[in-house]
């Protein structure tokens, strides 16, 4: 039984990305916690904007809670629909719209996450990137702070932090 109950040899990258979304959320504090509370949604909305590169693993969040709210996975088509999101994952196909997205979420407590190259330096908040055989996290500290987030030290410890 020992063999069957342990983590896998190596993890499917889509699976890892899906897990990272929730784990990162658990280690981010919405300083204006009110931001979540104030929003009318009674869900913790994870929005996938653009292509979904999670290979079906987002079903992990069925019946899960983050910040004491049930998680709902949304796939908004328009930027305007991002207002309902607590976390938005920006797919590669939307990299041409980054400026518009950042402009739209300005002043809103929406955590932005992406795999787009240079995302953290382009005023994105959290970037996942492959480093050898591991998936690493890069955080633009200043941008997260400006949007009313605090990153827990536990996450900062294992992340590459820029603009601190």
């Amino acid at each position, binding site marked *: 039984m020992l063999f069957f109950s342990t983590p896998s040899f*190596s993890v499917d990258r889509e699976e890892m990305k899906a897990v990272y979304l929730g784990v990162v959320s658990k280690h981010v504090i919405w300083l204006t916690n009110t931001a979540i509370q104030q929003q009318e949604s009674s869900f913790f909305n994870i929005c996938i904007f653009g292509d979904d590169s999670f290979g079906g693993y987002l079903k992990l969040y069925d019946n899960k809670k983050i910040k004491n709210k049930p998680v709902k996975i949304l796939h908004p088509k328009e930027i305007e629909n991002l207002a309902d999101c607590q976390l938005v994952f920006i797919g590669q196909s939307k990299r041409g719209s980054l400026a518009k997205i950042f402009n739209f979420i300005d002043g809103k407590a929406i955590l932005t996450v992406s795999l787009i*190259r*240079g995302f953290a330096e382009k005023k994105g908040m959290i970037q996942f990137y492959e480093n050898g055989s591991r998936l690493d996290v890069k955080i633009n500290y200043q941008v997260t702070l400006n949007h009313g987030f605090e990153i827990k030290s536990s996450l900062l410890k294992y992340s590459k932090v820029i603009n601190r």
Partner: protein
Amino acid sequence: MKIFFLLVLFSLAPCFFTIEVFAKEVVDNETENLYNNSLESLFNEEIDAEAKVGSRGKAVGLLKSKTPVDVVTAEQIKHSGYTELSKVLQRFIPGFNFPRASIQDGTDHIRPFTLRGMAPDQVLVLVNGKRFHSSSILHINSSIGRGSTGVDLNSIPLHSIARVEVLRDGAAAQYGSDAIAGIINIILKSGGEERRLTTTIGQTYEGDGELYQTDLHYGITLPLDGFIDITAEFRDRNPISRAAIDTRQQYFDGDIRNNYPSQINEIRGDTDTQNFLFALNSELPLSNDIMLYFYGTTNYRESESGTRYRRPLDNRNVRSIYPNGFLPLITPKIFDYSATMGLKGETLTGFNWDFSHSAGGNHLDYGVKNSLNVSLGVNSPTSFDAGGLGTRQHVTNLDIFKKADWWFENPLEIAVGLEWRYETFSISSGDESAFIQGGIPILDGPNAGNTAMAGAQGFPGFGKINEIDEDRHNFATYIDLNTQFFDKLSLGIAGRYEYYSDFGSTLNGKFSLGYQVVDSLLLRGSVSSGFRAPSLQQSFFNNNASLEINEEIATVATISRNSQFSKEINSNPLKPEKSQHLTIGLVFEPITNFSLTADYFYTKITDRIVLSGNIGGFNSPAIGDVLRSSDIFAIRSFLNALDTETQGYDLRANYKLNFQQQGELKLTAAYHYNKNKAIGEVRAPAIFGSNGADIVFSEKDRERLELGQPNDNLMLMANYKNGNFNGMLKLIKSGAFSEAGQRPNSQWLTDIDLAYQIHSNFNIAIGVHNLFDTKLERETDDGNLLTNAPYGHGGGFYYFRLTADF
């Protein structure tokens, strides 16, 4: 038969269903476990390896690939303890053979490797997905790979490598010439985050072969995830010799010195080699969508190896210069370089594009020392510049990839591309004294007054008559389509057209298929055609060697396409080798920490190019007539003479046990089997006479092709990690090989590497290669010389490694 098949299928269906349900639950549990893991544990998890080779589109997970691919990671490279890429791959890729040639002239210094027991030039090597140039040397002695060229993998600094992808399938229909046994794609480190100094020192159990290696990898991050990764390495390896005592008579009859104790006179083993290596990999974002990239490698190598010993009584000696005999030494200087610059990007409409130009080359300048030219008598120099070989390659590529969403429910992946390639091969002459016949006869001894052998002893080199500078170009275009149906069936179809300026055009295709029977079981297969263009070396290499036959001096010439004899014997121009491939296999993942792959392969090659044996008037009167007007005694030539087939299978199982606080253990078992066989008639030009087939492809050649390399290899690997400790144990069964009528048994080899992180920045390791000191018996000088042992001559080797991160 059909009924039987259906019965089997139906009876297996419940098994697949059970596996499906079981696997699904395990996957769900595993995802849940990951989610609940500590951050430290989660961030240490490895993600599935992907390979860019195999499909011209996006990278594909190894266990999802329609064709078999192995990956060797930087971690595995580090903990292998080896400092040369060829040796690393020999330890991780079953079917990869790297025999340690000895006393084979230039082959000792640029040693060939093979896949699946095929020829060194039947493997395509890529760096960062772009074609790498071949080395300049043509292996013309009796080593594995006789008559072929190959890539010098050891010219790439080991610690510049992020991973090596090995495609075990024919893929010339996607990548062009040479991709017959497979493709090796070397991916350089990137990201600019690693700064590491690695030093390794070691030696054999017998105290020779001392190794000193220092490698500095320095990464620099640039804005917008750009990077520069630089690697500089120095590697110094002292020679290994396992020659036996020379018991032959050394001096003329009656000389009292014949009573002196016998001694070791030769060097049989690894060469004395110093390497300076450098690699750079960089990417600089120019905008959101465009990336400028540049990468390259260089290697400067000075090397020294022995040849056969010239005894004091030898006709090839001038006794006033070497009264006690001499061992000529070959001292080549080798420079290898490559550089690629390109732009790549993705348009907002989803077109990925990549435009690049690569330039590379390899130059081998032969030197000979501790030698002489007997025909120059007592005034002969003792060291010579013996000329050199050079290759250059320029490749321009345009690759476009698009994931088109207008294809049913799954996208159609479309890859198209263009390639232009220009290659050159040159031979330059050395000192005149290295190859001339000086006219002075043998000065003393029983053969005094006879004609003396021309040229520098050990390696006569190349004269003015051998000088050439040849080139060719080719143009290629390809298309590679991949898609999925019903999420179960994936199909790939590829085609490639090429035009070569020397032999014309080729058109090849490939069809691949993957069927996901259940989540845990993938069936896969491919059929394809391929080709290998004759190398410029095979078309244009030429040399004249002076041999002693029945105490007479005779010149034997390797003739090229330009030779006056070439047309007369109808040997050239060479045609491409053509190949057909079939691969069928499966990937089985019944539980998430276990995977099994099994793949059968079949490759048929027609018009295979071989280097004939010597032919002259002594074995073909017609050839004797052709040569009569020249001073050449015999010739040898490259010919499209042979058809071969190769079949076999690969099995690989990976398993990981996670003991939580007590660490983790990764287990791998891999087995490779191949059978190479010459089929059909050997095609010899009619002028070769009735024994032509035996001259073109002798029994010795057949032995080398069919049995010269191990038919099978078994590898058992265990890697245990716990906190700061990392231990690797490898047991390798190297299959039997045949050479010169002898067939040493298969051998077990054991490697151990034990590493400990003594500080956050420092890691130390000790290790042993070939723990139980497996090696061939010391050879006798009058016996057959076995040089094709896959495990070399040195026996056990121990080392210490220090790694510092900064």
